[in-house]
């Protein structure tokens, strides 16, 4: 699984102004207490776009899209092999997919 805290580095990049001197104050965010820890509401729902209707490539088309050393998250159920670029998962965070008959969420 991914470096979990990197996912909010993405949020940081989106939310914080490019002005280097600006300090982001978390106290300005709306929040809700859950199990004793605050949950911050940083971005609107779906601003980070999960994938709901994934499309896939195989064979030469797949190779054309990928670099050989590109990191991938792979899953294999003994019959079907599916791979997701980690660079792409960093962008989407979660992909709603099927592995055979099993609904899966690819997330890193």
């Amino acid at each position: 699984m991914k470096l979990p805290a990197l996912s909010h580095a993405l949020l940081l990049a989106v939310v914080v102004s490019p002005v280097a001197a600006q300090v982001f104050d978390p106290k300005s965010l709306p929040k809700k207490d859950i199990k004793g820890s605050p949950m911050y509401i940083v971005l609107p729902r779906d601003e980070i776009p999960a994938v709901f209707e994934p499309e896939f490539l195989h064979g030469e088309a797949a190779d054309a899209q990928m670099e050989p050393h590109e990191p991938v998250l792979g899953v294999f159920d003994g019959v079907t092999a599916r791979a997701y670029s980690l660079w792409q998962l960093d962008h989407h965070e979660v992909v709603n997919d099927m592995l055979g008959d099993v609904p899966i969420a690819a997330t890193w």
Partner: protein
Amino acid sequence: MYARKVGEQTLTLGVSGNLWKDVLVLYDRETDSLWTQLSGDAIDGPLVGKSLQEIPSEVSTWAEWKARHPNTVVLKKSVPVGPGYLGYASDPDMLGMFGSKNPDQRLGGKEMIYGVRLPGGAALAVVESYLEEKGGIVASVGGSSLLITGSAAGGVVAYRLPQGVAAAAMQQDGTWKLADGSSVEPSTGNVVGGPRQGETLERLPVTRAYWFAWASFYPRSEVVGKE
């Protein structure tokens, strides 16, 4: 990687835009429950208390994965994406978005670990550099012995050893020899020789994470590979 079916209900997961304990929070469209990306647990909403089942997956390179699975599909890219992130990963003082504290000083907050969580709730974290140095280890946690090792893919896999087997050693051919004489192929968990030939070891999902995030979720986690 999670199975997104809870009971009879298939869930569709999106990104809520919220952060809780420095991890991303997902939501499901069916019930509006909120789920932690790191542990797959519902923390709010109608399904609070439920957990998504983890499915074993691996991290590899495209070339290596395709060599082992020539018929694999790969997710199509809708936008160009590239490597590299911010300087976040290399900054030892920046823990999380809001400057979280390391909740457990057994390891540095930014120490990279591989975490394994047992179904009963016991948890183990292995320091990445230690695991790389050793190639693989056997560790005891929660009454079980775990084999944690690199797979041919370049990822890390974890298996629960059979009851009563508490040791294993890596062989020159890459297999692991268990204390009962069984030989295990680490990429698959298949027992390829010895008294248990034909069996497959129980595989456990492995999470790669910063220590501070893992420790905040699993405060009683065992630690292996500390200096």
